[in-house]
């Protein structure tokens, strides 16, 4: 397993958790059918277990709005990756 998830990894994980047919990394998360805030939390719980070295928490989604996409979340995650993991 990679120490740093790719955006494709995130999309697959969120798809598995939510049951959504498709996750477009550039679509606003609030507008993706079958994905709601509890799906995001369920995904985050799995993420925290899978990548314990990345200190991601619910603040990833604290200011979620119409412009927040999975790509934005991925960028936020990359910013959290400890230097030694890069």
């Amino acid at each position: 397993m990679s120490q740093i998830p790719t955006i494709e990894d995130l999309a697959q994980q969120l798809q598995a958790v939510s049951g959504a047919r498709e996750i477009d990394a550039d679509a606003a998360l609030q507008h993706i059918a079958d994905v709601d805030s509890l799906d995001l939390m369920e995904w985050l719980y799995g993420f925290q277990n899978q990548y314990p070295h990345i200190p991601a928490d619910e603040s990833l989604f604290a200011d979620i709005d119409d412009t927040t996409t999975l790509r934005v979340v991925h960028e936020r995650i990359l910013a959290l990756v400890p230097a030694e993991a890069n």
Partner: protein
Amino acid sequence: MSGFDVAGWGMWVPETVVTSADLAQRFGVDEHWIVSRCGIRERRAVGAGQTTASMAVEAGRRALERAGLTGADIAHLIVATATPEQPSPATSAFVHDELGIAGSAHDVNSECAGFVYALVTAAGLMRMDPRPILVIGSDTHTQTANPADRDLSILVGDGAGAVVLTPGPVERIRAWNLGADGSCKNSLKVLAGGSRMPTTAETVAQGLHYAQINGNEIYLNAVRYTVRTIRETLEQAKVTAADVDHVVPHQANIRIINSVLSHTGIGPEKLVTNLERYGNTASGSIPIALAEALDSGRIKDGDTVLLAGFGAGMTWGSILLTWGGAR
């Protein structure tokens, strides 16, 4: 003798039904959205003259009758509630008076984990003083939810459940675990009405006497800590998820429950739930679900039963029991 029997049980919910269709109309959302969000189709709400204590009295009375006892036989009464009858005295005082309890009375406020905390407390008391104990969980969270708060209003319902423990030779608790993380105290809170912010006309005008919830934080921590407490309890008992016959979780949200089952490996066929009909009744949820499963004959003597709850604070706890002792 340090063990106990679960000699009786009972439950009581108000007659008034609030359906998800009712709430969908109130909040201008689709009924399907509510049900898919939390798995709740209807919940009960207290009416005139119905309170946390009055519900506790009814549930307690039924549990006593089932056990063939009266209040005069009870050495200790423990009422788990986060929505007390009034700030002082404790809700248990009202229940004590109504049921004619002979012995001590105190409240436990561990929010929705309250019944698990109360049961562990009762088991400890039983070791020191092996006489009958009445344990009740009762909450009226429909009264603390802001009627304009959609996210909380769709979840909460009112109800009470109770068990009577009597001394017995069997050590029924095979393992238990309690925990708390006070750094999560702001995930679900009622700001006004205590010493930190006494009630004033201003706090009421601002609605600070109503509960405020951060649903995302609650979800994440509820899953995290309930999974943790179940794993620790099973490990302590040296059993696996496959050895559990029934799991009775806090009935908070079906998506939290399903996540916990998935992450602990407990099969969905073992789940005892009535969430669809009663919603989240807080301290009442586990004993109400237990009472229904016992009345229907689903849970039988000798079964391995896992109770697991979490609540605001955060608090959490689980107990693995060998069920039995009904009269």
